[in-house]
């Protein structure tokens, strides 16, 4: 199947069952909300190396936040509710509570709850105070600038991680431009692209010749290894491959994000669009690229 001159490979992205959380960070202005958002989602590209995957889902105007201030919505994914709870405590404690003027609120209704503010409150050293609004308990933690307000508990829900597309281009510039366009198109509510500005160049395969490593470079997609790796997945005219990884709160948003990405990336100079999988043996979701492309925009 082709979109213009770009071949859409008849393959599938193999995605995994994960758990996801959404939280809202508000601040005096968008600058500080964004600063906290960037900080709390730093070093959260891959669950293998970072214990979680996180990103800014979007920016929020005052009407969309619980305290009527500008904010950002953040999604964070992990392999278990307990693991997400630990990451939230670490990251919100170090990156949001520390950031001037911020407050932090749960962004998911229902589902399982993990205690976050209820643990961070001890930073208040006995001066913390709680407030109960309906069934929602908030903690006021005194800080040098004033108070840090945070929900006691945050919701987590089953989610989908590891959706992906691979963009195989004739040269690095064209491939990077296609990846940037795809990443822009793929940012829809309910998904994040956890790698730097959404794009990853060091896609991995599971395992390594070195026992300590759980993953290593995806040699079949490295243009410089075309002659030395056991096999290559690259046509002769491909000199650069970039990947976009997608995590979402459910399968349908991941599929929609991928569909938009494929459409946006396909162009002259992009030879193929493919996807990473492990033969269908590891992930619970198989998202076929051809099915996505056949869906009307």
């Amino acid at each position, binding site marked *: 199947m082709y979109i213009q001159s770009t071949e859409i490979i008849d393959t599938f992205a193999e995605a995994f069952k994960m758990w996801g959380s959404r939280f809202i960070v*508000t601040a005096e202005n968008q600058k500080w909300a964004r600063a906290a958002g960037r900080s709390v989602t730093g070093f959260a590209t891959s669950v293998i190396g970072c214990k979680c995957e996180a990103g800014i889902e979007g920016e929020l105007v005052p009407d969309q936040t*619980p*305290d*009527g*201030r500008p904010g950002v919505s953040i999604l964070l994914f992990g392999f278990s509710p307990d693991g997400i709870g630990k990451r939230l405590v670490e990251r919100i404690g170090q990156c949001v509570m520390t950031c001037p003027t911020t*407050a932090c609120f749960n962004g998911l209704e229902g589902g399982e709850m993990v205690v976050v503010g209820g643990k961070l409150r001890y930073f208040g050293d006995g001066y913390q*105070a709680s*407030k*109960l*609004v*309906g069934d929602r308990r*908030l903690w*006021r933690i005194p800080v040098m600038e*004033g*108070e840090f*307000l945070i929900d006691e508990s945050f919701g987590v829900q089953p989610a989908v991680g590891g959706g992906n597309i691979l963009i195989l281009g004739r040269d690095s510039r064209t491939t990077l431009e296609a990846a940037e366009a795809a990443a822009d198109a793929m940012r829809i509510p309910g998904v994040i692209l956890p790698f730097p500005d959404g794009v990853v160049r060091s896609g991995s395969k599971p395992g390594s010749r070195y026992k300590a490593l759980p993953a290593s470079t995806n040699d079949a997609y490295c243009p410089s290894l075309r002659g030395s790796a056991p096999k290559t997945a690259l046509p002769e005219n491909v000199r650069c491959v970039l990947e976009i990884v997608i995590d979402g709160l459910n399968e349908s948003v991941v599929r929609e994000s991928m569909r938009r990405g494929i459409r946006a990336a396909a162009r002259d100079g992009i030879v193929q669009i493919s996807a990473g999988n492990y033969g269908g043996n590891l992930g619970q979701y198989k998202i076929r690229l051809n099915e996505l492309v056949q869906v009307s925009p």
Partner: protein
Amino acid sequence: MKLRLHTLPEVPLEAEVISPDCLQGLSESEAGTLPIFHGNRKVALSEFFELSGQVNKSDPLVELEGDLSRVKLIGHSMSAGRLVINGNVGAHLGASMKGGEIVVHGNAADWVGREMSGGRIVISGNAGHMVGSAVRGSSAGVQGGEIIIHGNALNEVGNGMRRGLIAIGGNTHDFTGVNMLAGTIIVLGRVGMRPGAGMIRGSIIAMERTEVLPTFTYNSTIQPDFIRFYLFHLRKLGMSIKDEFINGRYERWSGDSVELNKGEILMFAG
């Protein structure tokens, strides 16, 4: 189900049975036999009320019409559903309430929501003394839930309050938040004398300047985000909240130092 007061009582009625919990599943005739007290005399509900319809299971609603200012204990121990009162209502409305919602289109007498633990009471007019308070001799008042009074309230709002929210759209009289254990009282108008006397924890938020007791200490003038959160919550519930309150700064006074000194009065400072 609708209840209309057809005979004005000479002395107060005690009508604990008027709640969705007690009336659900009953026919008009069955509900009419439920006992209430007229003074010290036990009478049937139908002696004072005309009943029509039934309480719907999926949306348990009880509507009351008439001058109920001599009818006490409506919504007592209510746990779910809605009770809508079109007219003034007597004392102890929603006492010991656990859930659901009571809406009064009129004024309420004393002891609104005393010792309630959940649910919401909304009064469009004024309320009497002891809103959300503990009964005399009891150590704890409101233990949860919300009381929203759009008008004024009299003395001892939130006496012994332990948890929850009381919001007054107008003014309060003396001893607002006396002996508070915790919880939040927001007064959009003027607060009477000696607010927070004997309070242990909790917050009294006042939008007009008031004199505080000498056992309270000024801390700082701050912009606590939780006030914004509460005010937005109240705005969503239909209270009229000025933008200047949401974006304003508040003087924080901690006290009462004759107790734990962990309570606070936050006064709007512009």
